């Protein structure tokens, strides 16, 4: 089987679906790998690195012609669509429910497509879970961006010129991204508080040294398959009351709250922002899903009421080296799971395949 690596075309995207190291792993497993020129350059992987790993470097048309499986990070770009061949397999992020038009066009090409972001959160699929691996990096990066935007330092410092109180960081949503954000902020010496809708996250947040703000909920806001259920209005109101006090003292706020497949919950209103500290910073990680913060806008920095609100849609791309490494490893695990003895092996009974298979030989299964 031959795997084809395509350069990403989405603006600002620096990741690549397969790194030279992982290409080598593929080859060791009996795959062949071809890659488009400069496919990994933005992630600081050069063509010569790929070649050393045994990858054939060529132009885009040849990659599409030769490869059985096209691997990508983002969904195929408009310009790439014509190249697809019947029976070809595409693996990458797809977001079929938001990209119905694209899916239709792909289906017309009679290809088979898997969506990496739909890998279920079950134990044996953990090593293919791109959402986890990328969110983790995003959580780290959100804190670094916040620390850079903040005109204060994080740690407590007692110096000859007086004592600097530690920065106060507040984190909404203690999922994968939120936990890593807690850990990173804590490492830098901040006083960290966190809140989430799922009660079991209390222990997890505390295990990283954060103080947890627990909202007492009557409603059974339980989680399903590792993702939270949507919160009630009642809950959001209570949360606001409880967290407000911390919010108005916070120097840096990071919001990561999301319920899988829904619009992001609105956690911070403009009214609240007005009462925040002058100079505070908010990083809204859920901005792509509508944002947890009223004023946030994708890939913009809004300064209002003395507060800087940063919305970033593609944080992992800012850590392109590591993000590509992890994504490639997830891809490797997924592909080697799909392909047994050089043969594609689509067992639709299997939870992972059932969950990720979006187009099967031109038939749209999810959209």
């Amino acid at each position, binding site marked *: 089987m031959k795997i084809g690596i395509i350069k990403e075309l989405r603006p600002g995207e620096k990741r690549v679906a397969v790194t030279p190291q992982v290409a080598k792993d593929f080859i060791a497993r009996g795959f062949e790998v071809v890659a488009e020129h400069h496919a990994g350059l933005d992630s600081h992987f050069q063509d010569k690195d790929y070649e050393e790993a045994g990858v054939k470097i060529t132009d885009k048309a040849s990659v599409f012609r030769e490869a059985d499986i096209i691997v990508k990070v983002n969904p195929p770009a408009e310009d790439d669509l014509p190249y697809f061949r019947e029976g070809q397999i595409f693996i990458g992020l797809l977001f079929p429910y938001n990209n119905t038009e694209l899916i239709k066009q792909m289906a017309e090409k009679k290809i088979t497509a898997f969506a990496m972001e739909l890998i279920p959160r*079950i*134990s*044996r699929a*953990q*090593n293919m879970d791109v959402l*986890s*691996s990328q969110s*983790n990096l995003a959580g780290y990066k959100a804190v670094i961006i916040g620390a850079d935007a903040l005109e204060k330092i994080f740690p407590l410092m007692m110096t000859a010129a007086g004592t600097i109180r530690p920065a106060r960081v507040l984190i909404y949503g203690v999922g*994968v991204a939120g*936990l*890593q954000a807690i*850990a990173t902020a804590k*490492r830098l010496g901040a006083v960290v508080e966190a809140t989430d809708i799922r009660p079991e996250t209390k*222990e*997890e947040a*505390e*295990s*990283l040294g954060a103080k947890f703000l627990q909202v007492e909920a009557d409603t059974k806001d339980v989680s399903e398959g590792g993702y939270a259920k949507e919160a009630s209005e009642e809950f959001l109101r209570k949360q606001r009351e409880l967290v407000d006090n911390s919010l108005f003292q916070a120097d840096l706020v990071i919001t990561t709250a999301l319920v899988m497949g829904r619009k992001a919950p609105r956690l911070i209103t403009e009214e609240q922002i007005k009462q925040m500290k002058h100079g505070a910073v908010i990083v809204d990680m859920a901005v792509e899903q509508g944002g947890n913060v009223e004023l946030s806008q994708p890939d913009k920095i809004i300064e209002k009421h003395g507060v800087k609100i940063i919305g970033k849609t593609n944080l992992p791309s800012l850590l392109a080296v590591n993000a590509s490494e992890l994504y490639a490893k997830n891809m490797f695990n997924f592909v080697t799971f799909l392909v047994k003895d050089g043969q594609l092996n689509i067992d639709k009974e299997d939870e992972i395949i059932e969950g990720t298979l979006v187009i099967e030989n031109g038939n749209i299964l999810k959209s």
Partner: protein
Amino acid sequence: MDTHAILNIAYLIAAVTFMTGMKMLGSPKTARRGNQIAAVGMTIAILATIFLHDKQIDPLIYILIFAAIAVGTFIGWYIAVKVEMTKMPELVSFFNGMGGATAALIGLLEYTHNTDSAYKIAMIVAGLLIGSVSFSGSMIAWAKLNGSMRKPIRLPNYNIFNLIILIAALALAVFIVVQRPESPIYLYALFALALLYGVMFVIPIGGADMPVVISLLNSFTGLAAAFGGFLYDNMAMLTGGVLVGSAGTILTIAMTKAMNRSLTNVIFGAFGDTDLTGGEDGGTKGTVKSVTPSDAGILLNYANNVIIVPGYGLAVAQAQHAIHELEELLEKKGVNVKYAIHPVAGRMPGHMNVLLAEANVDYDKLVDMDDINPQFKNTDVVLVVGANDVVNPAAKKNPASPIYGMPILDVEDAKNIIVLKRSMKPGYAGIDNELFYNPKTSMLFGDAKDSITKIINEIKNM
């Protein structure tokens, strides 16, 4: 006259070696040497007894004594050397029974020509009574551990029944001492009653409590020997017997404590099968071995290679600093320590890294799953600290398990496994873990930080 003084000195030496030996047995560093010292003292005492006296002895008797010693030595040595390590406790029970029997036989033999002295008869009767109980009880304990007699047999109201036998035996004993009948028939009756009591005493008790019972019977035999000492005015027997009697009693108490049982619980026959079994449906999955921090400490201290497997429980207990301290301590003692980091240990990617970096654990000591898995088979002890799912063999063996297919750390390959957690509760995946029922696994229950701190203290005292 001289021989008597030398005999006295020999016995004094023996008594001192017994005490010294016992003391040295109390610390891992000196224990073996202590045992040897006591053995030397014993040899001196025995040889002195045989040779240092003023009487002219018939050669036949000498021959018989030497023959008996030769036979006993041969059999004892042979059994002790041949038997497997795992059968040691039952062997102790067996040898203890032999001692009890000796004491009983002495009583039987000495009775008839001592009926003039109430004091001597009292000593004889006491030695016989206790020795017999110790003998028959030890034999039952032996059989139980041996597997010949697996289940505890409980007659209804066995407690009352036992009490009646005991009272009967004591009454008979008092009668004999007071009346001192010429005929030894009463003594034989007492002998029989005592044997019966020993059997009845041990039979209802479950296997898990056997070590405590053996320790108790051990101090009984000590007592029986002490009565022999009174009988013959023999200081070696007296001191040795009393020493074992008192030390054995304390040891018994210490053992019940280590097992989290109370002494009254033990004395009043509430012995039972209290092996811990997991979950509500207990029993079926096999037994769980619960150990003390001290046991864990010994295992770790005398290992050459140790691998620490941290999990979410480490984070919850905030035990990262403690585990680092333990690691440094072990390294200082020449143990080679590594950490096995499972990719999904904890609740976020890199959770263990964050914690261990905070505690300043050397990055080079952290080994990831693929690299460490082949190393477990050369590992003496794996210390699992609050990890559960990431070491659950069900991921490999049980296709029905929700974690089936997840790669795990192959801790089962190691020689010993110590698991630190608070209970038998499952981890994140909510499933039972058969690792905990593995015979190689020792569970140390309690908060991980507490447990580690205790282990550190134990090791420091070694």
